[in-house]
């Protein structure tokens, strides 16, 4: 009970909970439609989804200021790439929230002449840019960690792998008289190299749960704006499943703060 009280005291936590419920309704609506459920039940689910969406838009009023503050803090990061990615991601989020607030005003009737589709497309574009930058940041952090891991394990690797003779010349190219067997034999070191990199990637991801969770969440979320903008259509069922999964991952980071990727 105490955990619920602490959890529900944060407005971000409530938003994550409502997002989970909203995408659960999307997925449920798709499943019921596929299963041939009655129109009354479908309309109830759709109505609930609409209420949750509008409620979340209300809850997000003022989030632009939050995102701008986060961007101001990110400007002082020491790493140049992280500084750029995180700051620009937050600025895109601020624009997304501004468009979202305008959509709320449109849906409540404050701005009756608002072109809702145009502003919806705009907000999804900013959301997509923010997700791309977040994924870039994740990829950068993974590459740094993989480099660090391979340097740490590089000494041991040279001792065990140094005895392998390389068929490549000094300039890295194949000798002109290399046979087919030799060319086929070259694929083996390449696949071994890829295999090593893959194992290194898995090791890095397993050792860094916050980074893994953030990467998964962003990968799941990206399908939402891609579908809504018509760039990569997946359908309401897939979008609902992705939204639901990423919302659950987001809830985990709120319940277990150590799982949240910092900064």
């Amino acid at each position, binding site marked *: 009970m105490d955990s619920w009280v602490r959890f529900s005291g944060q407005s971000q936590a409530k938003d994550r909970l409502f997002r989970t419920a909203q995408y659960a309704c999307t997925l449920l609506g798709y499943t019921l439609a596929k299963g041939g459920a009655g129109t009354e039940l479908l309309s109830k689910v759709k109505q609930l989804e609409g209420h949750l969406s509008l409620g979340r838009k209300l809850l997000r009023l003022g989030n632009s200021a939050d995102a701008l*503050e986060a961007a101001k803090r990110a400007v002082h990061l020491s790493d140049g790439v992280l500084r750029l990615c995180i700051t620009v991601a937050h600025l895109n989020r601020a624009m997304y929230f501004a468009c979202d607030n305008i959509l709320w005003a449109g849906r409540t009737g404050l701005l009756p002449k608002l072109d809702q589709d145009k502003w919806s497309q705009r907000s999804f574009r900013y959301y997509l840019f923010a997700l791309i930058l977040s994924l870039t940041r994740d990829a950068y952090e993974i590459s740094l960690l993989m480099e660090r891991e391979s340097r740490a394990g590089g000494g041991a690797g040279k001792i065990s792998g140094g005895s392998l003779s390389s068929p490549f010349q000094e300039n890295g190219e194949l000798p002109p008289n290399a046979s087919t067997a030799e060319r086929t034999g070259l694929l083996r070191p390449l696949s071994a190299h890829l295999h090593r990199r893959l194992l290194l990637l898995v090791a890095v991801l397993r050792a860094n749960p916050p980074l893994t969770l953030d990467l998964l969440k962003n990968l799941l979320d990206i399908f939402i704006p891609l579908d809504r903008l018509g760039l990569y259509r997946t359908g309401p069922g897939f979008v609902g499943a992705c939204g639901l999964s990423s919302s659950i991952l987001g809830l985990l980071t709120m319940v277990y703060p150590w799982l949240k990727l910092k900064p």
Partner: protein
Amino acid sequence: MDSYMKLVNQSQGRDRVFRATQYACAFLRHLLRNNAARRELLKNLRNVEASMSSGRKLFRLGNTVNSISAAKQTMHLSDPILQMCLTSIHLIRAVYFICDNILWAQSVGVLHSIDKERWSRTASRCYLVSLVLSLVQDMYAISQITSWAGQKMEHQRKPLPPKGKAGEAVCCPLSRNVLPSHLHEGLKSNIPIILDVLKNICDLFIPLDRLGIYKINPGMLGLCGVLSSFMGIFTLLQPKLKMKP
């Protein structure tokens, strides 16, 4: 900016801001009700008010658990009157939130066959009883402080100790020049209670009007709601002004 962020990052903070906006809209609608030129603005105010009201009902889902958790904590208070008042307040609020959640479910179409009017009246009754008990708690707290201040003043009126050999009065820790500081201390500790009393009195008019016990015009109702919401926001921004048992 930091205070604003601190306020809106708490669910309660956001709820208070939306409540203030909701009642401000109600107040402004009453002021502009006879102004035909402002019909569009009146419609917008009604839409914002309705949106805030339904949004707040959504955010209150799960608050029953919070109230029951608070009741479990107040059950262990040493003062029996405070224990009874606060525990009852939290339990009644839990029932209020259940009614509120049922009304939300009806408004979104999840529940159809419920008597909206009956549940609304039950919610208003619970809200009224919790406010009356809050005022009882405030009066009890004031009576405690008054009796403490009275005891201090009694202690002040005791005769001074005999003069010393040199003919000078022996230094007494409760001499007259210390009395104003006690009064000052008493007044300072009363500010959270005064704020709580004012907030509860402002809030009291809302269920009294809804239940038809004491009808006031919608403008006054809006103003009372705005004032009590601002006082609530103030106690969140300055936690030392929040009344504690």
